[in-house]
């Protein structure tokens, strides 16, 4: 039995995903000048696959750095307050920072990260997310680059996991209910 058998439907097929990522790269290229040398900040783990594909399309010289965060407490309702497990390797003071996220739903975690990074004095701070679930939003944060707006469904693949599996599917799929209700 393969991982794909747990997928009820393919929400965004691989070709469509890759085409949109190439477009996002063009939008980002149009936003920054070559001298800006933006720093792309990837929030692990979910966004690593998106980052790997997005950055290979970018013409603008840029750098990448990583943050890994974990929420306090358990449960599905996130307060947004997170623990930083891995902080950026470099200072962002005076830098053009682009946060790269896999998905934004309530916006609470992103709100926390942007507030945290803003205190460090970046020259600019923008957000690029592959997926957005507007119907779940609790805090409005401007998203500068959005791959796809999606309905409030249980999505996996392309970096997004359920209990650490399905991350490696090359498309975005909706998980069958029996796969997560056990």
């Amino acid at each position, binding site marked *: 039995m*393969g*991982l794909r058998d747990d997928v009820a439907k393919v929400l965004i097929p691989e070709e469509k995903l*890759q085409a949109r990522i*190439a477009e996002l790269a063009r939008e980002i290229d149009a936003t920054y000048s070559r001298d800006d040398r933006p720093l792309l900040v*990837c929030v*692990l*783990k979910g966004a*690593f*696959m998106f*980052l*790997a*594909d997005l*950055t*290979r*399309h*970018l*013409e603008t*010289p*840029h*750098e*990448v*750095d*990583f943050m*890994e965060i*974990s929420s306090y407490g358990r449960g599905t309702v996130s307060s947004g307050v997170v623990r930083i*497990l*891995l902080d950026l*390797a*470099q200072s962002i003071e005076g830098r053009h920072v682009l946060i790269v996220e896999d998905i934004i739903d309530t916006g609470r975690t992103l709100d926390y990260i942007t507030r945290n990074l803003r205190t460090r004095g970046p020259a600019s701070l923008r957000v690029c997310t592959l997926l957005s679930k507007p119907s779940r939003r609790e805090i409005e944060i401007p998203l500068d680059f959005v791959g796809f707006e999606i309905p409030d469904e249980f999505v996996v693949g*392309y970096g997004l996991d359920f209990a*650490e*599996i399905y*991350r*490696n*599917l*090359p498309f975005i799929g909706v998980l069958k209910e029996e796969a997560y209700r056990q």
Partner: protein
Amino acid sequence: MSRRKVELPKAVDRVLLDEETIQRRVEELAAQISADYADAGDLVLVGVLKGAFIFMADLARRLTISHHVDFIALSSYNRGATSTGAVRLIMDTRTPVTGRHVLIVEDIVDTGYTLDYLLSTFQARRPASLKTCVLLSKPERRKVNAPIHYLGFEIPDVWVVGYGLDYADRYRTLPYIAALKREVYE
């Protein structure tokens, strides 16, 4: 897949491995790993930041077997040619590995110190098995013997960038692997 970044940066001397060659080899490695671990049970891929993130992204999505992905961040105490090999752990993995199959995913092995450190660190956690998957190896530079179980390519002792590898954080996300001009780093 669209072809990308055809214009070489000025610091680049020549392309060592083009995008198609890398992708084909990653596909072969993924097929081999999928076959070898088909009946093994829990597999945890441990990617070493920052360099391995692109290799990890391409390798993981080609695996046909279920697995976990985790990352570890390391830093050397002293950089440069005189490195003693002492490694500082910046961020550990989050996935418990005891009793699981661990595959360390690295972009490049030169002296072997980092890989040796990772092997002893993970061995102490009593995994069911412990292997390494490395995209690039520079055998001429080896100081300690650290086993590589899955290897992408052997390359000569030149400074390479792209596909995760950087020079002062630059050129890391080129879709191919290129040799830098000597005057850039010497």
